């Protein structure tokens, strides 16, 4: 136990920053795991460049990982970190402006050489002015790390690679986090000298905190009061991958995942590929079009076809999606949105593919569109997407985003029995079979799989005769089939639960959000309500069809503000659909909303009254 006193804090946000080769993401992930095990609520924001290794020490190569943890319920990685850990001058320069005034700056002072200052674009040493504005702690991290490893025969390069674990050990001491899970991980991950080296510097960093006079006290963030149950940490992409595996179990159908590598969706392909023993088949296709086409082929043959991609890949799949609309086959396409247009900023977040999901195909091509709103919710949303796809015989688009994909939060592990069992009915009876005869309630056509005797039939992209599915050019039949496809998707609204209005159920201002911005919007509106402001908010996960009571809910408020990470796509839809004077809070910086950005707009709109 530390001899030094400790101080209790409600919450703290730390941002680790360094070169993309410094192991920042790993350091952040390990700190997150340890924090989860310490029982705090938490939210993380990894922020890294698209380049694998940009030139060392430059602004282009700076990688960051922010973690916010608390004894209270929290929903965002925090607008401004309280602590900034910077491994080099470029990392300091790229991140200092975000730090809370008076916050703590921990730097590797060994890295502040004339040369590296110049590489970061500093013309003079920034540390004196940093210490005027913040609590500056200068640690000779490189030297301390080397010292701790001097009797191990490591190359200076190998030794240097351990220094992130020295810093991690120090932060474990400073915030009273347990080290066991990280030591265990090092035990499994490394062998020989490198295992010894990493474990040793982790402990050395911890001991340095305890003995060094640089730190007069450590801090304690008590356990959060969260719902009882069993928890684990989860990122959006892991939740999505596990949801894909779970869907196959719950629906008792094999999964076929067609994918082409693309940031930030590739992790889902990697993760699902590890679960062949669940009977899942993954196919790394030659391109995005092939990935979608193969998944549709697998669906035709009775599998649960699914594709995971991001914006540029999603656009390439649109023609195949249109065919799935025409062929009325189940398919789930997940678009983990990233900043665009074109290649844009591949590792940064955005929500600007909403209209592409709804309207990005030729002609009338209705598909259900769902959006996950927290990392853990990616699991529930992909299950819902599969259920809708199979129940209604339709492709379904699920929207996630780069922020949800990479962020982590504590996740109550679902009870498998509670996930239910979805019975999938394949058509086997030849008597009276018609490929495009519809279920009265859902309007779904039968799923008749090759290999079933007596159901031989042809489907395809040409216009279909109602019932028989034969190629048809009859004008009235064509319009009728358009109507049926629209009606089929529209009827899904009957299954969508009523909207939860957070705050008063009518009044001056309603903030509307959708998808991955939930944490920031809910936090901002709750804070405003605590301050006595008359603001309510709703958060949509169903973008097509909308919840059936959406128009009615909107009509109960004088003003409607739509906050989204695009130039106003949901706002456009709400204006068109409900004739409501929806105002826009648009952001396209590639970063999630800050609570204060939403709050400022709420305040401004209410002041107008």
């Amino acid at each position, binding site marked *: 136990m530390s001899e030094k006193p400790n101080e209790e804090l409600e919450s703290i946000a730390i941002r680790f920053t360094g070169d993309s080769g410094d192991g920042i993401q790993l350091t952040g992930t390990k700190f997150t795991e340890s924090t989860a095990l310490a029982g705090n609520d938490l939210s993380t924001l990894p922020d890294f460049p698209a380049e694998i290794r940009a030139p060392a020490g430059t602004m282009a190569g700076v990688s960051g990982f922010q973690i916010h943890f608390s004894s209270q319920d929290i929903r965002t990685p925090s607008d401004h970190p309280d602590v900034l850990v910077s491994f080099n001058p470029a990392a300091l320069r790229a991140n200092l402006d975000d730090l809370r005034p008076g916050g703590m700056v921990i730097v590797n002072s060994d890295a502040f050489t004339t040369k590296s200052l110049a590489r970061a674009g500093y013309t003079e040493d920034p540390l004196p002015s940093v210490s005027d504005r913040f609590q500056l702690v200068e640690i000779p991290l490189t030297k301390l790390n080397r010292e701790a490893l001097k009797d191990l025969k490591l190359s200076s390069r190998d030794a240097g690679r351990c220094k992130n674990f020295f810093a991690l050990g120090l932060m474990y001491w400073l915030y009273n986090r347990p080290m066991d899970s990280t030591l265990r991980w090092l035990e499994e991950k490394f062998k020989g000298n490198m295992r010894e080296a990493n474990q040793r510097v982790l402990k050395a960093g911890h001991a340095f905190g305890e003995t060094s006079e640089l730190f007069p006290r450590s801090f304690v963030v008590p356990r959060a009061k969260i719902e*009882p*149950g069993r928890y684990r940490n989860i990122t959006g992409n892991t939740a999505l991958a596990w949801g894909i595996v779970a869907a196959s*179990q719950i629906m008792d159908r094999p999964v076929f995942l067609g994918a082409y590598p693309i940031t930030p969706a590739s992790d889902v392909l990697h993760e699902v590929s590890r679960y062949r023993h669940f009977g899942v088949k993954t196919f790394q296709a030659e391109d995005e079009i092939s990935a979608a086409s193969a998944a549709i*082929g697998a669906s035709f043959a009775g599998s649960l076809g699914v594709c995971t991609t991001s914006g540029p890949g999603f656009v390439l799949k649109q023609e195949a999606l249109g065919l799935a609309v025409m062929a009325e086959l189940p398919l789930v396409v997940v678009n983990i949105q990233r900043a665009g247009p074109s290649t844009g900023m591949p590792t940064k977040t955005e929500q600007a593919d909403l209209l592409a999901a709804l309207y990005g195909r030729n002609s009338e091509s209705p598909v259900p569109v769902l959006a996950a709103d927290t990392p853990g919710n990616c699991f529930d949303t992909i299950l819902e997407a599969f259920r809708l796809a199979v129940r209604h015989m339709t492709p379904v688009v699920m929207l996630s985003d780069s922020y949800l994909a990479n962020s982590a939060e504590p996740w109550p592990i679902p009870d498998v029995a509670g996930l239910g069992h979805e019975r999938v009915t394949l058509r086997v009876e030849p008597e009276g079979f018609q490929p495009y005869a519809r279920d009265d309630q859902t309007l779904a056509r039968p799923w008749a799989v090759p*290999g079933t005797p007596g159901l*031989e039939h*042809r489907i*395809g992209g040409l216009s279909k005769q109602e019932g028989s599915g034969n190629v048809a050019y009859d004008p009235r039949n064509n319009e009728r089939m358009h109507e049926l496809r629209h009606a089929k998707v529209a009827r899904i609204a009957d299954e969508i639960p009523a909207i939860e209005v957070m705050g008063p159920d009518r009044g001056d201002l309603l903030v509307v959000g959708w998808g991955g911005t939930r944490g920031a919007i809910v936090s901002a509106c709750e804070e405003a309500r605590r301050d006595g402001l008359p603001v309510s908010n709703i958060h949509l996960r169903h973008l097509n069809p909308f919840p059936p009571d959406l128009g009615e809910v909107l009509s109960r408020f004088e003003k409607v503000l739509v906050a989204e990470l695009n130039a106003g796509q949901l706002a456009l839809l709400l204006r068109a659909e409900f004739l409501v004077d929806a105002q826009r809070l648009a952001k396209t910086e590639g970063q999630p909303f800050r609570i204060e950005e939403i709050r400022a707009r709420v305040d401004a709109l209410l002041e107008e009254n």
Partner: protein
Amino acid sequence: MAARTALTQKDFASDQDVRWCPGCGDYSILANIQRVMPELGVPRENFVFVSGIGCSSRFPYYMNTYGFHTIHGRAPAFATGIKCAQPELSVWVVTGDGDGLSIGGNHLLHTIRRNVDLQILLFNNRVYGLTKGQYSPTSRVGMRTKSTPDGSIDHPVDPIAFALGSGATFVARTVDVDAQHLQETLRRAHAHRGTAFIEILQNCPVYNDDEWIEVEDRKQRVEASLKLEDGKPLVYGPPGDIRGIRIEDGVPSVVELTDPQDPVSAGVAVHHDRHETPAYAFALASLRRTKFPIPIGVFRAVEKPTYEALLSGQVAAARAKRGEGDLESLLNSGDTWTVEA
């Protein structure tokens, strides 16, 4: 359950009117495929015909089997998904020179390279028919069409060389109206495990009539085509003017035979489709009119594991090693913690 009665050609014809132009080579191909189907020992419900876009791609609508008319160029990818999902199905891809080698060239390449167990039938008429007569990627240089009024300046791709270059394990060429050879080739393709690629020379009477007349016409065929038969020398020509093909250092040449009974002594190559390297097959694929005859038959037939078998094998191996996946333990894997009430 009573045994099902044997199926006939008619059982494979759908109730839809066939809508190709009068005189189209596709009619003959359709009839011959329907003829061969009952002989293959596959229940009708296990056949799936998959196509892209173009005249040839209307094919599935006329087959009374499962069928999927998909999007332009992507049929091999759809077929890959079908075959991976249900490896026991007999999956046939019908494509054309535009669908398969222009917009769909990438999928054709990768499907062949993976050796998915499919039969891929590429109807090559060297023209775009459904869009009314533009030149295709197999059209000859100089071909005048609506889009090339001054003649095409594209160098054509050869489907056989393309398939060989993609690593195909079975490559053959046949002719729309040569019923016997077409049927024989379909049978062999079906028996092959892996991607069987067949180029079918096919006449478009409207936009590129008589492109293949030299190999379609019985008389001209004698002079203009070279039948590939395993273990037999590469000889062609009318009686009294028999010639052979010699291949030296990969370069083919024509040999005038003084003694037609002994072509081998004159250096004429003997056909084998099982060479380990594709070099010999490439040499054959390079034979062009009018200097050489057009080879008809199986260029290459070698064994390699199929993609869908390897994929299913990985699933089986993972299950054998780790046991059937258990969702409960997956969700609870790694570091977890319990919050007490």
